[in-house]
């Protein structure tokens, strides 16, 4: 065999080898998809554009600059937590009712719970075996990989969300948590724009988007909060704020963009007649699943002979699962293809 034949043979061998591998691990991957918890959506590991550069109109300084952020896979609630879900929690944990509990235009079972503070939201999520999403997780779930301005795209459409006092004067002022299906995000999350503001995990800092934390960022590390008392006993102005996202039924159009950042005191349950939340959850065996999904991607890239991209993908897989022999072998194969 001459050199060229050798290469072709090698390539054919590699591709068929990888195809077999692909088929072998596919059931595992599809099982992971099927296992998405009820009423949650999967946001796959990968990069997304967080924030927006200040060259555009109607954006605020704290949303800049636009930056590529890497996030591991996670699940996020498809809907804002409803009054009926929150009722289960109140009963199970003898938790106090939220601020707008006796406001009939807001307290129907399928409307989002309104009038919770950050501690209520955090306690609920842990009760549900979940957690609050980080600010970056919230933003990625809302805007999708293409970085759209609104969950559904780049054009403001009044029919796709409840905002700008959209429902005031009507029988109910917030919409059901499953309303506006055509306004859902790329990943399938509903009402990420309008309806109620949503608490996220992070502390608020106006310059956080310009920091170097680009891999699974968790917000500024200002102080560790163990309970309500630790925060509220701090006198002003050390009192720190938590981020709220997404705008509300009451909020004007410029505050319902996927990049808009707002803040509220973590103990304040009454901000703006519309303060709710949704939860997120880690993938079971997170790193492993993530590495696997990078590996899958690698095999597809190799099949397309896109070796440079394949190399970066397999490198990511090895971050999650550094000792995996399968991954290492594939990496060697790719390196050989790149430098024969």
């Amino acid at each position, binding site marked *: 065999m001459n050199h060229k034949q050798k290469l072709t043979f090698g390539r054919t061998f590699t591709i068929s080898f990888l195809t077999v591998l692909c088929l072998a691990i596919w059931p595992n991957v599809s099982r992971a998809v099927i296992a998405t918890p009820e009423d949650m959506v999967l946001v796959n590991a990968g990069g997304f554009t967080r924030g927006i550069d200040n060259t555009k109109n109607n954006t605020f300084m704290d949303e800049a600059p636009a930056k590529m952020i890497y996030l591991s896979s996670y699940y996020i609630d498809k809907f804002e937590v409803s009054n009926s879900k929150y009722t289960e929690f109140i009963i199970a944990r003898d938790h106090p009712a939220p601020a707008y509990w006796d406001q009939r235009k807001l307290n129907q079972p399928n409307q989002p719970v309104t009038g919770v503070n950050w501690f209520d939201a955090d306690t609920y999520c842990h009760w549900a075996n979940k957690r609050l999403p980080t600010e970056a997780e919230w933003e990625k779930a809302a805007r999708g990989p293409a970085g759209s301005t609104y969950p559904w795209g780049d054009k403001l459409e009044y029919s796709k969300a409840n905002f700008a006092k959209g429902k005031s004067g009507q029988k109910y002022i917030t919409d059901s948590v499953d309303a506006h299906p055509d306004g859902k995000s790329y990943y399938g999350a509903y009402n990420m724009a309008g309806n109620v503001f949503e608490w996220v995990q992070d502390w608020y800092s106006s310059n956080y988007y310009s920091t170097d934390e680009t891999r699974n960022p968790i917000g500024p590390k200002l102080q560790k909060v163990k309970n309500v008392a630790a925060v509220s006993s701090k006198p002003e102005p050390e009192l720190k704020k938590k981020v709220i996202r997404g705008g509300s039924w009451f909020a004007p159009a410029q505050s319902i963009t996927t990049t808009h950042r707002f803040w509220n005191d973590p103990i304040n*349950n009454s901000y703006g007649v519309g303060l709710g939340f949704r939860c997120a959850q880690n993938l079971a065996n997170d790193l492993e699943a993530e590495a696997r999904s990078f590996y899958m991607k690698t095999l597809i890239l190799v099949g397309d002979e896109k070796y440079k991209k394949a190399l970066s993908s397999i490198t990511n897989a090895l971050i999650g699962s550094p000792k995996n022999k399968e991954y290492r072998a594939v990496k060697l194969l790719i390196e050989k293809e790149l430098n024969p």
Partner: protein
Amino acid sequence: MNVKKYAFLMFITIFFICSQKDVYGNALRDSVEMKTIPAGEFIMGSKMDEGRADERPQRKIYLDSYEIDSYEVSNNQYLNFIRSTGRKDPLNPYSEILLSDEAGVGNLPIVQVTWYDAVDYCRWAGKYLPSESQWEKAARGEKGLVFPWGSKKPSQELANYQKNWDGIQTLWPVSAKIESSSPYGVIGMAGNAREWVKDWYSPEYYKNAPSSNPQGPSVGILKVIKGGSWHSFKSDIRSASRGKGGFALKTDGIGFRCAK
């Protein structure tokens, strides 16, 4: 000419004195019955096995004597205040017409009022908004009852709670249910309308409060709201239970009463 000028000056002076009296006058402007709560200690807060963390520990607190409204402030009372001060009508929870034009609701408790509305009303009436401790003592007496009527579990016979909105049937008249009144005869301290009190909310306050005439923390973000309302679960209508909300919060279930 001079006489005219003099008369005009007199008129201005009298008007000025009268309007001053409007603000500082001590005369009670609502004729609602009040109960006297004698000076002395009472049991405030909840024991370890009862209630929530922010109500603990249970302590003996001394309060000077004071009076408190026997009932929640009614729509009629509040509308008198609106008329005599030229303020805007509060939101009408029952329909789209003005609250003053709504029939059959005069004796229901006023709701849809902010903490400032409550403070202003009490001041206008020559009274003040009770402190959290004054409210709690008036509700549960000296011996630390769980509910105003005792430790018996609440029922729809005793209290208006855990109900869904039902138009003008939702809230009870302010004088309803003498049988569930507190040891001092104060009515409506569990359920019906939640009630604004003067104090800022701090989850630590039951631990740190002075044991004599506590007035609440000096700063805060939320005000305390006591007693629970028509939609509350039973845990939230306990006398020690501590609701909370920003001073601009308004709902179909938040009202108040005054003290003096």
